């Protein structure tokens, strides 16, 4: 009796068992095949080509043209003023073009600082998913700038070359989770001339940047640049920024609070004259809009 019941049970289970074996087979084939497919690169370590004020490891894909408008608004420390909304503003208009998936060039011009800038950016390494390759992304950035007007009185202004400065950066970033990315930016600033021999022509800096995704389209970003050997003739502080990036289709909107009105690396890294706080004169509100065009 007991055996009969067991037989019945076996017979009952048999079709289910053979069916599940078949179904598992399909999943096994799919798993095996997808495991042998090459793993790709991590996408969107940062959403934009700038974290907040400085470059991010990201470059756009071939044929991408980005037109950007960067601006800062601030008040002077004077107790009374009759200016509309903000006492002062600065702006930079720029164009970035991706020659290949890894290589981007850009130019820009800023008012009222009168700084013209060019840069190129090359992706040396990309972070791979599944940790199967490089655990970090590496991007090389080289900028060259020209000061058409006197700014902080640091450089000599005798000829064209005297007014130039160059920044070299190696950006090292890792997308730690789908929401959180960090970037380190060892930077080297070289200015072609100095008025005051107490100031160095070369300065090193270390940039820290991060983003945290708060929703699918919005992330909070922050950046800080540490300069161990600062200028001697003027008091300077590390450039800081805290902001939000909001992606709306083809347009990337970046809002920030920062302590400087500059847009080029050599200037904001080494010549930020205010420390970050909310007092008039120190507080700069920044807005950047970048429009993406696929060519």
């Amino acid at each position, binding site marked *: 009796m007991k055996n009969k019941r067991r037989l019945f049970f*076996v017979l009952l289970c048999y079709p289910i068992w053979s069916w599940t074996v078949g179904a598992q*087979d399909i999943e096994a084939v*799919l798993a095996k095949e997808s495991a042998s497919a090459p793993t790709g690169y991590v996408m969107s370590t940062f*959403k934009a080509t700038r974290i907040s004020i400085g470059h991010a490891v990201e470059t756009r894909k071939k044929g*991408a043209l980005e037109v950007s408008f960067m601006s800062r608004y601030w008040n002077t420390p004077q107790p009374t003023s009759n200016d509309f909304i903000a006492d002062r503003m600065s702006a930079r208009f720029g164009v970035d073009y991706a020659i290949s998936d890894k290589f981007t060039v850009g130019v820009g011009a800023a008012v009222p600082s009168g700084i013209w800038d060019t840069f190129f950016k090359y992706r040396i390494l990309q972070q791979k998913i599944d940790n199967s390759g490089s655990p970090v992304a590496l991007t090389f950035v080289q900028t060259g700038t020209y000061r058409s007007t006197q700014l902080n009185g640091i450089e000599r202004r005798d000829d064209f070359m005297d007014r130039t400065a160059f920044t070299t950066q190696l950006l090292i970033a890792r997308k730690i989770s*789908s929401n959180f990315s960090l970037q380190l930016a060892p930077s080297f600033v070289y200015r072609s001339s100095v008025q005051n021999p107490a100031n160095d022509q070369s300065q090193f800096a270390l940039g820290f940047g991060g983003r945290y995704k708060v929703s699918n389209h919005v992330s909070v970003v922050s950046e800080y640049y540490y300069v161990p050997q600062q200028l001697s003739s003027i008091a300077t502080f590390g450039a800081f920024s805290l902001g939000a990036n909001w992606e709306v289709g083809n347009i990337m909107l970046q809002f920030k609070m920062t302590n400087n009105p500059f847009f080029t690396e050599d200037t904001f890294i080494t010549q930020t004259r205010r420390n970050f706080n909310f007092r008039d004169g120190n507080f700069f509100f920044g807005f950047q809009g970048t429009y993406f065009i*696929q060519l």
Partner: protein
Amino acid sequence: MKYSILLLILVATSVCLGQQSGEKLLARQGQVTFFSYTAAENIEAVNNQALSVLVLDTGEIAVDILMRAFVFKKTLMREHFNESYIESDLYPKAKFRGRIKDFDPEATEIQTRIVEGTFTLKDKTVPLSFKVSIQKLNDSILISGETQVNIDDYNIKIPKLLSPNIAKQIKISFNFQHTPYEE
């Protein structure tokens, strides 16, 4: 004793049957294209790496689509698709599991059949059935067709500002060339 022999026979036959029913065909470079047509913007993306397994005698079909393998004309869209809509870090694949009804593995003429199954995207599984056309060419079996999915079914959030640019119904067309699978 008697029963254990019976059990052995059952296992043996099922293994044999399993091998028979296990005759599988595989498509490694299946093409899946999706379209979103709106007055504001047309979006089209192609994936040439979709995996499909077809079991010959049962007509079972299973498709895995790697989301990051979709390629867009406007390159920025690929990033947004993966990062802001599909979240492919968290949900790397879309899956279809189903069965071709009244599938005849021997027929040499083009068959038009209904496929019934489920489509899983972003961990949401929704029943999906559509028509396919099936053509046998020597050893291989071509399956192609079209279907539609409703964005609202799949936990895909579209900001109000961009909703005019993305269709509610996404048209999907596919083309799989299955060839005999050898392990």
